């Protein structure tokens, strides 16, 4: 049984189960949706995020004084409200109050770094277990005909990486954030993004197949 999983590809249903378990488990335990590109961004801008986390810790430690400063800032803001805003506040007073939980959950810098590290470790472990780990300077299978040799293969990888990074940044998420977490929560933006990138992948795969 173990050998079957170690050699070759795992069954598709196990992959689906593993991915959904990861996305659901993450959301359940961390109280926020899984999004790998967000972790990557947090680690990439670690200096800025470290400063942000320190400030959050300071705010937590001095909650009373933060609350006081916030009340003062609120009073100052109230003194210079526009006519429209005043009307809006007046109108709001007549509406019954509704409460909503606004607990802000942000995955910490260290948790993001650990998650990213274990994505790499997991990949290595899987490849080592089935004995297929190797340093590759050329693509496998028929892609070798398209981008043969490191002088084409490496720029192709860089170009692909840049396009993925650009698309992820532009759409505010990647396959995990939009594809797993967003579609599971029926977020319209995630449904559109996932349909776009999977649709594009299918079309490109068909085109390449007909070329190779």
């Amino acid at each position: 049984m173990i050998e079957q999983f170690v050699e070759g590809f795992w069954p598709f249903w196990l992959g689906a189960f593993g991915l959904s378990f990861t996305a659901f488990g993450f959301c359940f335990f961390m109280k926020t949706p899984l999004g790998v590109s967000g972790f990557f961004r947090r680690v990439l801008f670690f200096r800025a995020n470290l400063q942000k986390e320190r400030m959050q810790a300071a705010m937590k430690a001095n909650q009373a004084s933060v609350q006081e400063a916030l009340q003062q800032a609120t009073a100052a803001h109230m003194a210079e409200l526009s006519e429209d805003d005043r009307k809006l506040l007046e109108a709001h007073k007549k509406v019954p109050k509704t409460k909503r939980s606004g607990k802000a959950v942000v995955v910490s810098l260290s948790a993001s770094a650990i998650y990213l590290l274990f994505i790499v470790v997991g990949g290595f472990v899987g490849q080592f277990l089935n004995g297929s780990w190797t340093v590759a300077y050329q693509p496998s299978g028929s892609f070798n005909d398209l981008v043969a040799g490191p002088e084409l293969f490496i720029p192709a990888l860089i170009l692909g990486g840049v396009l993925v990074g650009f698309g992820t940044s532009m759409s505010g998420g990647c396959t995990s954030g939009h594809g797993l977490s967003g579609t599971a929560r029926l977020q319209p933006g995630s449904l559109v993004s996932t349909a776009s990138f999977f649709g594009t992948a299918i079309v490109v795969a068909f085109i390449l197949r007909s070329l190779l």
Partner: protein
Amino acid sequence: MNDQNKEKNSDCTHMNRCQMYGLFELDDSVEVWKILYCRGTYTRCERYKMAERGLRVLPNLLPNGQTIEV
């Protein structure tokens, strides 16, 4: 319905991860921010605008662009 009215009837899309919103929730005396920004015209909030541009949002930045001392 124009865009401005649409925004006035909807919640800020960053609400669940906005630290400042968490602070507003703790104290009813500062709920004016929620009414005017978070559940009002959130697109004019400086935090929202920065986050939308992919910029780092400092935890002590208020929706009107002022900061509170920490």
